């Protein structure tokens, strides 16, 4: 009985998922697309929870729907005059793509079926679950992210860092939101501290329960973004140089820890057992700060600048003219 209930829930939710995906990818209106995409992100969070992936549910709700949503909404303000786009792709092209997509789906489904057939269904799971106690943390996902596959996470921080470098290089300071409605200000005034505290909690709890640096960092960023939406000059809290330090501290602490462990234990990022818990927490704390700084800057679209200074980024490099 319960199984049937669950199955009908699954089928219902997947129908909504496919519908939202289809609508998001087929709309010709940017506002509509963004709204649908945020809804799609929220539904994903539900699906992660259903598939017993609470870490992902948390991350998706904060990052996938929250931060992406904020970024998209901000970008959309540039599109006020041009909301609907006509496209003149040929009918022949569209049908070609349709047929190819259908064929690809059938092919993929056939491949997935065979893959599931030949799999033992255990994969790396048991190995990870057995070894987790040796990793310094008891939450398996954190063990994978910060110990077994810590190098992936290091490079992932490098990806975030790279994206922010580009945002900073491209960015000129955006027009700010004006002072918000009094009720919004009042709400944010008590919401922001809660978010900041929750972020600290997520960081700490990551060792033995869902949570960790990425969720915590994104939560912290969300607090700053909310504050900036109500007209608080978040960027004036920190100067240029301390912002730079905040951006690099995550990767810096991570890499230096890795090198020290290389010198002591002979392998990059091979934590000494008795230090593992502390080192992971240290790395995660540093990463949280960097991620928060990065996402906040990505939202603001530029480095904090003294207000009277001219924007040298706008200047076009005269040495390099277009060559196409």
């Amino acid at each position, binding site marked *: 009985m319960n199984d049937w209930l669950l199955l009908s829930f699954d089928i219902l939710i997947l129908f909504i998922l496919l519908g939202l995906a289809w609508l998001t990818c087929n709309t010709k209106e940017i506002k509509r697309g963004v709204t649908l995409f945020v809804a799609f992100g929220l539904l994903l969070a539900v699906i992660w929870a259903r598939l017993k992936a609470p870490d992902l549910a948390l991350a998706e709700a904060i990052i996938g729907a929250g931060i992406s949503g904020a970024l998209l909404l901000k970008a959309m303000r540039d599109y006020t005059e041009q909301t609907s786009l006509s496209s003149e792709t040929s009918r022949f092209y569209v049908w070609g793509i349709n047929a190819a997509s259908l064929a690809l789906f059938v092919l993929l489904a056939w491949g997935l079926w065979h893959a599931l057939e030949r799999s033992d269904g255990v994969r790396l799971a048991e190995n990870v679950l057995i070894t987790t106690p040796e990793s310094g943390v008891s939450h398996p996902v954190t063990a994978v992210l910060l110990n077994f596959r810590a190098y992936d996470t290091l490079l*992932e921080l490098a990806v975030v860092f790279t994206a922010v470098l*580009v945002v900073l290089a*491209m960015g000129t300071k955006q027009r700010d939101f004006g002072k918000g409605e009094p009720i919004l200000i009042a709400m944010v005034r008590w919401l922001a501290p809660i978010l900041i505290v929750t972020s600290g909690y997520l960081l700490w709890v990551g060792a033995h329960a869902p949570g960790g640096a990425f969720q915590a960092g994104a939560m912290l960023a969300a607090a700053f973004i909310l504050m900036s939406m109500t007209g608080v000059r978040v960027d004036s809290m920190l100067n240029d*140089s301390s912002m730079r330090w905040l951006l690099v501290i995550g990767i810096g602490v991570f890499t230096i820890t890795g090198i020290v462990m290389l010198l002591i234990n002979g392998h990059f990022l*091979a*934590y000494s057992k008795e230090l593992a818990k502390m080192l992971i927490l240290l790395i995660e704390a540093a990463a949280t700060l960097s991620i928060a700084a990065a996402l906040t800057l990505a939202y603001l679209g530029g480095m904090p600048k003294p207000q009277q200074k001219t924007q040298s980024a706008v200047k076009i490099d005269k040495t390099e003219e277009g*060559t196409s």
Partner: protein
Amino acid sequence: MMINDAIVWLIAIPLLASLLSLVFPKKGTAIAIAGSILGLLASVALVYQVYQSGPITHELGGWKDGLGIVLRVDAMSALFIVMTMLVVTMVGFYASAYFTDAHKKAQFWPLWLMMVVALIALLASGDLFNLYVTLELLGLSAVGLTALSDNRAAVQAAIRYLGIGLLGSLVFLMGVALIYTAYGVLDLAMLATVVEAEPAAQLALALMTAGLLIKSALFPMHFWLPAAHANAPAPVSAALSALVVKVSVYLIIRLWFDVFSPVLQPTASFMLGVLGALAVVWGSWQALRAERLKLMAAYSTVAQLGYLFIFIPLVMAFPVGEERNTALAAFLLLALTHAFAKSALFLSSGVVLQRAGHDRIAELGGTARALPLTIFVIALAGVALIGLPPSGSFLGKWYLISSAVQTGQWWWIVVIAMGSLLAAGYMFRILGHAFGPDESIGKVMAKGSEEIPALILALTATVVLGFGSAWMWDFVNLASPLAGN
């Protein structure tokens, strides 16, 4: 001990240098140059280590049995890593003179060094998902660097490049998902021992290859490359053409012949060869017709990458062993020669563009007198791109032709001959204009730091690789896991 862990230092040094160059923007150039030279030394140590004791592995975090990520370096990756570090160091010297605006410089170095991290990490990675992360890091940093030109065409090309890059990585990632579903492993060496010729593996390989083909701009997926490579700042164009597209080709070769060898189909490899042949002809033809120097160089990249794909059906036709290794060594020789020659060509184009104020080929008259060294470098690069002796590509193409004869696939010879003729055409066209009668260009002086790096790269392509190829043959036979697989 430092020597034994060279591969870790090769990743850690540019990574830390990138961070430092952001925190200390005024010292960015010094930090980047110091980091590059240290990296270059480490890469030489790495080759020495591989030459002495064969392929090396480094278990990150000390975890075994596929739990952690493993770095693996054999002859092929070691040579690609040295190539990367040499190009990056020379282009770095050039870039320190190219960017005159301190603000631009401060934006350039951290991104540039992140691209170096991504290149090395990709070449050393022994893990499927880790490869996806390195591909994304490489894609994003390359896009950012392209956009640094700061004009409309460059930013537009960067956006398109980003879309293409993401598409490629996601298709690749879908392949990884299928592999993990079926086999439950991500480690390449472990996968190589369990993978079988069955639908899931075949489809996964097809997806990963397709993703990488988009990124390596194989005809007809090359449409995004000319705009991005021609509009990026000159040092960036050099790295994009010489290194960034090439590591995707490297990865295809690695996956095909090292990991998925039981799965391979001769038909698929023949198809890749055909696309490569079309790329050679189409790219060379477009290069011949291009009106601007940098666009010509970008189309030439499309063509030169085509040769690398012609190797795939030829390598497949040889049984595992010395003959196959010889073919792979020839592949390496051609890939390396192109990297050095093309980066030299792009750097020289940058000098011409900055000194003459334009790079329209028809109006290059007088440049040979005004910038003799730069034009000499272009000529040297031309020798390597056409495949004249003593360049590395002469030997590379010679082996390409002889293995085509050996395996009875003579039709590739027609393509190689055509490509070389067309390459001669587009290179001599430039030299013809450069030596032509004086036009607008007045008396100009290029700084040594702009011209010397390009000269070193061009000499490496034409002389060093030509004479050093015998050693490379030995090296590949000694230190290739392909030999024992």
